[in-house]
């Protein structure tokens, strides 16, 4: 129990601290690295509440794909973040005010939130008890049976997205030399080498 509490506060503290560093770091690359740290800690929090599948997805999708993509964009586009950050203090009061109003609204909604008592029974796919079956197993059982149609449909959407990106951007560039290993191996000495008999003293 005590280990759980310690890890919760550790993950929570690091996540918040890293999130603060994301917006305050000077170097955008550092920002992205702190973002990755935040994701890892959030994943840790998910593991603590027993949602290991979401934790792994968070790492794989957000760290593996999204954050790395951010990193690419930050490194490849030459954006002057120092310039973008100018006027930060100037806009801080009004921005802070908007933030406080939003926070107050969220608190008001959150405190008056009621879940209808019958909701639990209405669920079409009640969550199985966590002692008997793992998250991943439970999601798989629903996704590949009841929702197979939508799963396959989503797969087709992604395939079309990939085909579309290739159709619109791939161009055959002339004059690009590629290494074809099979051709290199299949070359015969007769094709490539010409042997000349040169008489001494006459030159070529």
């Amino acid at each position: 129990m005590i280990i759980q509490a310690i890890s919760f506060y550790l993950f929570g503290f690091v996540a918040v601290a890293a999130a603060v560093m994301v917006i305050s770091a000077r170097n955008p690359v550092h920002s992205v690295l702190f973002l990755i740290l935040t994701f890892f800690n959030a994943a840790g929090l998910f593991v603590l509440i027993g949602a290991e599948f979401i934790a792994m997805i968070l790492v794989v999708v957000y760290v593996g794909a999204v954050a790395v993509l951010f990193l690419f964009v930050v490194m490849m586009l030459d954006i002057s973040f120092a310039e973008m950050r100018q006027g930060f203090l100037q806009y801080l009061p009004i921005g802070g005010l908007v933030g406080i109003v939003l926070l107050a609204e969220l608190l008001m909604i959150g405190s008056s939130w009621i879940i209808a008592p019958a909701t639990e029974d209405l669920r079409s796919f009640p969550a199985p008890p966590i002692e008997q079956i793992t998250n991943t197993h439970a999601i798989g059982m629903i996704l590949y049976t009841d929702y197979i149609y939508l799963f396959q449909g989503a797969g087709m959407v992604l395939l079309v997205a990939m085909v579309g990106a290739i159709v619109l951007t791939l161009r055959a560039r002339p004059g690009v030399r590629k290494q074809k290993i099979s051709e290199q191996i299949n070359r015969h000495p007769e094709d490539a080498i010409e042997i000349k008999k040169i008489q001494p003293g006459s030159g070529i």
Partner: protein
Amino acid sequence: MLSMSLLLPALPEIVLACSCMALLMVGVFRGNNVTRSLSWVAVFSLLLVGFILSSIQTGRMTAFGGQFVVDDFAHFMKWLVIIGASLAIIMSINFNEQEGIARFEYPVLILFAALGMFMMVSANDLISLYIGLELQSLALYVVAAFRRDSLKSSEAGLKYFVLGALSSGMLLYGCSLIYGFSGTTSFEGLATLFKGLGGAEPGVGLVVGLVFLIAGLAFKVSAVPFHMWTPDVYEGAPTPVTAFFAVAPKVAAIALFMRVLMGPFGSLIAEWQQVIVLISIASMVLGALAAIRQDNIKRLLAYSSIGHVGYALIGLAAGTEAGVRGILVYMTIYLAMNVGTFCCVLAMRRTGRMVEGITDLAGLARNQPMLALAMAIFMFSMAGIPPLAGFFGKLYIFLAAVEAGLYTLAIIGVLASVVGAYYYLRIIKIMYFEDPAEIFDRTIPREVKIILVGTALFVTFFIIRPGVVVEGAASAARMLLTG
């Protein structure tokens, strides 16, 4: 065996998906020089899907735990999609070669779009509705920008994509509100819930969700006030793509509109009827007035299609079986007229380049009398002049509106079609009574000629045997309403 029979209702979709992927693989390995044969194989597989569709059709069936439904309504609409997609592929074969954009992805993407439309037409759940819609739209964004070296085509694709993404967002927002306030995404569940209300006011959250859902769908059928993308996209996209845009996606989106509003939300007609009436009036009026000042034929047809959607929505506003039947007949005739007109536009080519101005048609009657005659037939039909097919489409719609007591809507519809007749007749006047402009190249490919003659005959002789279409539409409408 058990699992096979569970999948049987979705067999056409499965075959279509498999042929999409098979054609994609063949194209990737063989390159662009097989485009022509690949296109014909794509048309063939669409027809095969149609054959399977007709042979397994027995009443109403659901699959995948009720997320997917097939009935006479879906059957009718899927046939329209098959015809629209096949014709779009056939029309494109020579065009794409002449324009230097003959790439094998084109037929494959059209097939993917058709698959998305199939899923839309058969949607029986808010999630499957969204997945189908997105599959269709994504394929359409790409084909709109298919001539990627042309600025206009890229602009068309980008504009369609940005606005389409916005409308998808609205649709999703509506779906999530509906789900949040009702607790289910299944159409059957929603229908039971709303019937249980017994005429009482549904929660305001549900009505807001419904309005967002209607907004998202109205974008896809390009009804006013969500029509802004239509003229630019129609003008920029390659002509066969425009022909495809004008027919198949509209058929599928109108089908979805009917499926959603008449099915689960059927008992809430008091909530959505006024929205549809407003959209319908605005579309008809804008379609009629804005088209007058156009001088590009594709832009003109875009505004004309906005107007046509307005007429079709009258049938939806009526909310009766006669209204649904009217829409189905209207969309069938609309498909034939539009495909035919776009075949004529494809023939507008001078010294190897496409021309799109309306004045380029001047004196066509003297240069190419047959082409001018076909164009005149389509224009008369679109204006709704008897005895051509377009008249009957409007007749069934207006009849349904009058029966449902929507007199104002019917009168505005008739007035708008009188105004609309002006610009259709103007094209005929330019073709027949003005001094001939330069002659067009006589290079209409044979298959385009066949489509042109076929659609012209359909439009002209619809009056002799209207029963085939009307009876099919009537049984489809009956099934949609009784379930």
